[in-house]
């Protein structure tokens, strides 16, 4: 028994080393920088500096944009995932590939492509021009920023939803219609409750990168919509204020942890303990 548990510990060692190196160590650095000044003396000054109106605005905007992007992703992704799971197994594999396909392109190139599409003299407005519509002002709006987030992170909503929905036993769905559920009611009463775990992981996988994203807002928002990610990047890249940047990262982490806790709590109450 002892021997075995020792073996198990040994087997887990690489994972431990990995965690310490790449998760724990950066965290310690973030916390260290966040609570020290330039000379390395302990201080709360970095955190209190963030209470300024201009920073608060950035935080609130980031949370709102990420929230909106997540909700839109969920609304778009759910029907896609649902109908994907109805397809034949081979078709499903191809569809998953197609969903992931844009991710093979570099993130920067994807975002630049959207710039080309959305610009006032861009591709969309040119086409609309032929139909005597527009030009519509799309680039450098908050909508364009959120669109950029939705486009980039949508696959991370579709994939977990699809994987949960496709695992629902079709006989359970038949049982529901056998007992009198119209197709819509089957969806509301059985499919959605049984896919809560997929919704939770999809929301997490979209919300977290959305709230910490940078670059999207710079390119599609024209610098009008500073987000936390951009502000942090600036502290490290141009202002060289590591301490303030770390403090922002620290607060961002807190926001994420709190959001996730709230959501898990809420969904946990809702479904009475589905653990898939």
């Amino acid at each position, binding site marked *: 028994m002892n021997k075995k548990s020792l073996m198990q510990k040994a087997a887990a060692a690489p994972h431990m080393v990995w965690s310490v190196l790449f998760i724990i160590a950066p965290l310690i650095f973030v916390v260290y920088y966040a609570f020290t000044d330039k000379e390395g003396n302990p201080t709360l000054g970095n955190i209190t500096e963030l209470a300024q109106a201009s920073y608060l605005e950035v935080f609130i905007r980031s949370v709102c944009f990420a929230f909106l992007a997540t909700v839109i992703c969920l609304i778009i992704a759910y029907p896609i995932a649902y109908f994907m799971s109805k397809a034949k197994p081979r078709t499903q594999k191809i569809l998953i590939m197609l969903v992931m396909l844009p991710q093979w392109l570099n993130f920067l190139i994807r975002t630049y492509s959207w710039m080309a599409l959305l610009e006032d003299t861009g591709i969309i407005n040119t086409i609309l021009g032929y139909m005597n519509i527009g030009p519509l002002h799309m680039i450098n709006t908050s909508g364009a920023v959120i669109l950029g987030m939705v486009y980039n992170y949508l696959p991370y909503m579709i994939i977990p939803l699809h994987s949960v929905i496709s695992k629902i036993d079709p006989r359970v769905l*038949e049982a*529901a*219609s056998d007992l009198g559920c119209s197709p819509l009611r089957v969806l509301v*009463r059985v499919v959605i409750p049984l896919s809560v775990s997929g919704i939770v992981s999809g929301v997490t996988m979209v919300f977290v990168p959305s709230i910490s994203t940078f670059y999207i807002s710079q390119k599609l928002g024209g610098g009008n919509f500073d987000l936390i990610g951009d502000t942090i990047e600036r502290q490290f890249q141009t202002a060289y204020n590591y301490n303030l940047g770390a403090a922002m990262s620290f607060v961002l982490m807190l926001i994420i942890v709190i959001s996730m806790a709230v959501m898990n709590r809420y969904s946990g109450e809702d479904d*009475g303990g589905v653990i898939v």
Partner: protein
Amino acid sequence: MNEKKIIELKNVAKSYDGEMILDHISLDVHEKEFVTFLGPSGCGKTTTLRIIAGFVTPDTGDVVFDGTRINDIPAYKRHVNTVFQKYALFPHLNVYENIAFALRLNKVSEEEIFERVEEMLAMVNLRGFEKRDVNLLSGGQQQRVAIARALINKPKVLLLDEPLGALDLKLRKDMQNELKNIQRKTGITFIYVTHDQEEALSMSDTVVVMADGKIQQIGTPTDIYNEPQNAFVADFIGESNIIDGIMLDDYKVRFSGHEFECLDKGFDKNERVDVVVRPEDVDVTKPGQGMLDGVVTSVTFKGVHYEIIVNINNFKWMIQSTDYVEPNQNIGIYIEPDAIHIMKRSEYSGKFGDYSSFSDELEKLSDASEEEE
């Protein structure tokens, strides 16, 4: 049957990928009847049930419910409920909510839901299980929840697809009794699928024997056992010796080189027929004192009786007797006229009812399983 017809299948056919799964079957089910589909794996029992439930649309033929053609009515609008083979309970709902599911769709008041769920729980002996997680119930308990869930809306017809298939023998027997009681109490028509012939015979009013997508015989359990229509039915229901015979005249048949008196008539003179003799209807005598003589090739103790294989004119008979005989012993056999049942020849003639391959069959089975590995 004086009750009125509740379900009629008229010339229903279904193919999958060009293969005929149901070959134009017709069947009437009456109110309050307990009907069982019995047949080997893959013969189309589940498909037939799913056609009645509305999950499968037949290629041709009509499905009639209470006098109305329902081919185009979706499953959720049919007054038929199903107990699924693997129960298919809602994993996100507890026992109470699983059973209440159908009522919640119809805006039934909370008090009435409570009353009716409690009534159902009492019927299936699950009082006190309301709050339990269905995923943690035993097979027998899940089974009961599935039955209660399907019965709460008082359907006219309950479809049960091998509902006891996953249970152990003891529990099976108990549940058989319980199901039969529930059916009597509620007066609901049960259409039951099984490939266990004993279960079919002991529970049903009517047994529908199926094979190869066709109905082989419809009848009461005693009819099916005593008057099988062809070699398939005779072999599938219980043990049978099925011998080639010639009908010499009414009440007179010749097989194994001997002329027998029997109770069947109405065949052509010298018509070739299949003769069925059940193993328990054969009496063992001293050699020369019976109608046929043979050599015992094997004897197996089965508890109530011995199962004796006897070689008579190179045809191996199975005989069940409470008296022990020695292997290689010469014995005679005696058959009463009412133990002989004559059947018309069919596509199944000569395929069943000879026990010479009895032990080979087992060897073949074990060969097959080795190949799979």
